[in-house]
Structure formats: C-alpha cells, structure tokens
C-alpha cells in the first residue's frame, strides 16, 4: 500500500519521497511519501513501534548516530536531498532543530544552555540579547530572568522542556522537530508547551510526534497517522496510513484503521 498524499494548500518545506528506513537488514519503516507544510504544525500519531519517531529523526539526520541505520528514498528540504553525499548533517541540524521526549538540558547554566548552540554556529551578535529573546519565545523569560547563571538542571521538568525549546529556537532554525515533547510533563506544563507551539508556528515549521490524540487535535494543522504491521518474516514494520488536515483525520478519515485509532478503539 502506497500513500502519496500532500499538503497542497501551502508550500511544502520538506518532502518525503518513498522513504524506507533500515536498521541493518531490518526494514523498520516502509514506503513513506509525506510533504510537510511551511509554517504549519504537523503531528505524527500512531501506536508504539509505528516508526513515527524514527521518521522524525530522519529529518535532521539524527539517526546517523545509530551505526546500523540506513535510509532509502529521498528526503528533500527546499528541494535539496538531505541524504545526498555532499550534504553536511551538521548544517542540516542547524536548520532543522529538535526537541526531545525527555527534557535534556546540558549540565550548564540556563544562559550557557542557550548560548552553546549559537556559539558553535558562529553567532556574532549580542549573546545576552539572543538569550533573552529565545527565553521570551519559549515563554520562560519571566520565570528565569533572575537566575540565568543557575544550572538548567535546577528547573522543574516543564521549565526544563521550555529551556530546551528556547535552546533550539536560539539557533534560529527553519523547522523544529518535537519528539513527544510533553510525554514526561505534568498537565499544566503540557498546556504551556502546547500554547508555545501555537506561537512558534508563526516563525517555524513544526513537526510533532505525539501519543496523545487530544494533543494532536489541539495543536496540529495536519496529522499523519502511522500504523505498524507484521511482515511474513515476523518483523514489525511501520507505514503511513493516512495524512490530511487534522479535522479531516479526526472527523472524517478515509481509512477504517484511522477511524478506529482516533476514536480509541484500537491499539
């Protein structure tokens, strides 16, 4: 089954064309076609093991850290194939930032957490200004402005995650990938991060992986539903079932499996 669906209304920043992801000889994610719309929030939903996080990490080549990882097909960003041999993954990650599942601030001060990325990427401007601007964008400034020199690890889980978001926006990426950013947070922190996603949308293209369907319906403009199937050899393989505007996915999906998943009768 091949789905070729795209967000037609707006311009596509990232195009995923017939992508297969292998770990060694094991085909983990198969045959993905998916275009990501500019300055929109796209949610990836689906049961565990459906490959949504794996695919997300393909967009900034973070899977390169796994030795057995192999990708077939093409992921293009502004029509440039990210997996072409002449592409420098370091430059890709600078354009396409990432927020992780568990807050992972560096064991450094709040200030240094934000300055790190800017500094390695050769930022020349006023660092204090950048730190303040990034923290404001992450709606964290008022809470931490008096303790910028304190360790980022001293913050609460929700604050840490917003610090990680601030750290990511500080390098002024084009796209922000979020891998279940709220799964380790309490409900209030979750709401704050969701609000933040709404605001960030103005400047950034966001892709968010989530387990939480309410969250997808709250924050996403587009939603991609992934599922997992067992192959003849017994391997579990992720694939894209359906991709459309979020309202469509939640209210009137084309596929039976999507309908069952979003209504909670599944997985």
């Amino acid at each position: 089954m091949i789905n070729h669906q795209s967000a037609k209304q707006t311009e596509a920043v990232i195009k995923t064309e017939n992508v297969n992801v292998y770990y060694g000889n094991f085909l983990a994610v198969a045959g993905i076609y998916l275009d990501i719309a500019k300055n929109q929030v796209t949610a990836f939903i689906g049961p565990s093991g459906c490959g949504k996080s794996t695919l997300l990490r393909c967009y900034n080549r973070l899977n390169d850290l796994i030795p057995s990882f192999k990708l077939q097909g093409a992921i293009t960003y502004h029509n440039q194939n990210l997996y072409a041999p002449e592409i420098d993954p370091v430059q890709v990650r600078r354009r396409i930032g990432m927020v992780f599942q568990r807050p992972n601030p560096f064991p450094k001060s709040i200030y240094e957490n934000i300055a790190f990325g800017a500094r390695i990427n050769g930022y020349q401007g006023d660092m204090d200004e950048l730190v303040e601007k990034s923290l404001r964008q992450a709606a964290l400034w008022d809470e931490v402005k008096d303790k910028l020199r304190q360790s980022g690890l001293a913050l609460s889980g929700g604050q840490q995650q917003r610090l990680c978001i601030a750290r990511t926006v500080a390098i002024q990426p084009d796209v922000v990938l979020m891998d279940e950013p709220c799964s380790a947070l309490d409900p209030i922190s979750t709401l704050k991060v969701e609000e933040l996603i709404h605001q960030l949308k103005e400047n950034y293209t966001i892709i968010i992986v989530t387990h939480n369907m309410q969250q997808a319906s709250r924050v996403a403009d587009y939603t991609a539903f992934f599922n997992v199937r067992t192959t003849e050899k017994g391997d579990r393989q992720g694939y894209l079932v359906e991709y459309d505007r979020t309202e469509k996915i939640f209210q009137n999906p084309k596929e039976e499996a999507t309908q069952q998943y979003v209504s909670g009768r599944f997985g």
Partner: protein
Amino acid sequence: MTSLSDSSKIIKPRPVNERYLDNVFKWTAQIFALTIALVLIWITVQVAIAAVPAIKQFGLNFLFQSSWNPVKSEYGVWPAIYGTIVSSFIALLIAVPIGIGVALFLSEDYLPPSIQRIFVFLVELLAAIPSVVYGLWGIFVLIPFLKNFTPLKGPGMLPAALILALMVLPVIAAISRDAITNVPESLRQAAVGLGATRWEAILQIMLPAASSGIIGGVMLALGRALGETMAVTMLIGNSNKVSLSIFAPSNTISSLLTNQFAEASGMQVSALMYAALILFAITLVVNILAQVLVKRLQKI
C-alpha cells in the same frame, strides 16, 4: 528445614538455636566487614608507631634534609619526595591526555563494537602486567632504546616516568571511559541536534559532564604513580641527589624503602618508617579525594 521430622505441626515457632545462629552469622559478617576499616587503621597505627623515634629525632626537618647517611645517622627524604612528585607529575603529563584520548576513542563509534571490546580488553591488560615485569622490560629494552637519541646514560628519571605513564594510563582510560559513557546519550543528541560537530559535542558537552569522574580517575592514577614501587626502583637509578635533568638518576620514597629496608636496623628502620608514613599519608589523601570524586560520578 531442621524441623521436618516432627511434621505434625506445620507452623511452629522458630527454634531458639536457629535464631541464635542467624544472629551469629550476621554478626560475624559485620565483624569481617569492619575488619577492612580496621586493617586500614591498623596499617596507619603500625607505621606511625614505628616512625615515632625518627619523628621525635628529626621532626619536620626530615622532609627538607637531603642527606641520607645511616653511618652518621643523618636522615632526610627531600630528594626522594622530589623524585616521587616529579616522576608522578611527568607520568601524568603524558598519561592524562593519552588516557583521555583512549577513553574517547573507545567510547565513540570509531570501531565496530566487537573490535572495540578487544581494545578495551587490551588496555585493561596493560594494568594487569606486574610492575616488576615493566621494570625488567625497562632495563633491557626501554633504557637501551632511549640511550640512542637522548643524553640518558643509564637508569634515570625519564625511563621511570615513561613506564609510570604506561602503568597509570589504563587507570585513567578505564575510569574516564566509564565517566564518559555514563553521560546520558540524550545530552549528545541534544548537542548534535543543535548542529554541533562530533568534537564540539565531546569537548563542550560530554567532557564537562564527565569531568568529576575523569578528575577522580586522574587522582587515582596519581595515587598509583606516587606509590608505584618496583618498576620505578628498577629504572630511576636510586640516586639520592636532587637533579633538575630528567636524564639524571633520581630516587622516590618507594625506591628508597625497597633499597634500604631489608638491610636496615635501629634508627634507620624508624627513618624508613617515617618515609613510609609520609608516602602513606600523601597517597591516602589523594585516594580519598579520588574516591569522593568517582563516587559523585556514580550518583549522576
């Protein structure tokens, strides 16, 4: 299990002697555990008591006097202290960068895991070779080799420090590697996700996060180097003179002890015990600091 014979009653109170045995067992275990700390204290007390006559006679002058003359009963360990510190310092100067380099090389993905394991094992093996074998190798291979292109004439500070470096390198490498691999992988991913290159992530994120463990490893290596005996005794030349040249023979506290103990008597034994006490005190402080730092690493 002792009461199955009269099985008419299934539940009966635990026999008194069993409870007694249980307690005896626990107490025995506890006493043996305390033995370890007692041994440490015993070593300290024993060495200190034997050193008392020398401490009374020479006081702190002992540390700064340079002559060691059993005939005239003049004793000073300054040359040995100097040699101990300098040889350990040179050894660390070499072993710290190499050890951390090895640790990084073996914690990154430069090698496939199976080959990496072999290399880790080989580095461990460096630590397993007996000190006296390093000494033998130093005498017959390293010193002749160094003579070819340095002013070295025979045993001296340089070969001793080089062998010391080789001996403490595995300590630094192993503990640094533990410290580095203990840094959560998520930190590396975060750094790489922000566009850091491999070495920007290593130098600015991974190493600082692992620093207390690495420093602990270096301290442990320092303790090892300060107290290392056989290889140093065989290679350093055992000359009780302070010389600034690394090609000149020198002495360390441990080589002083090795050379003199077996034939010493009277005040000389006490003076040697005093020297041993100094070495013990230095290594104890270094070791305790190292343990505290490494322990902090385990808590992260």
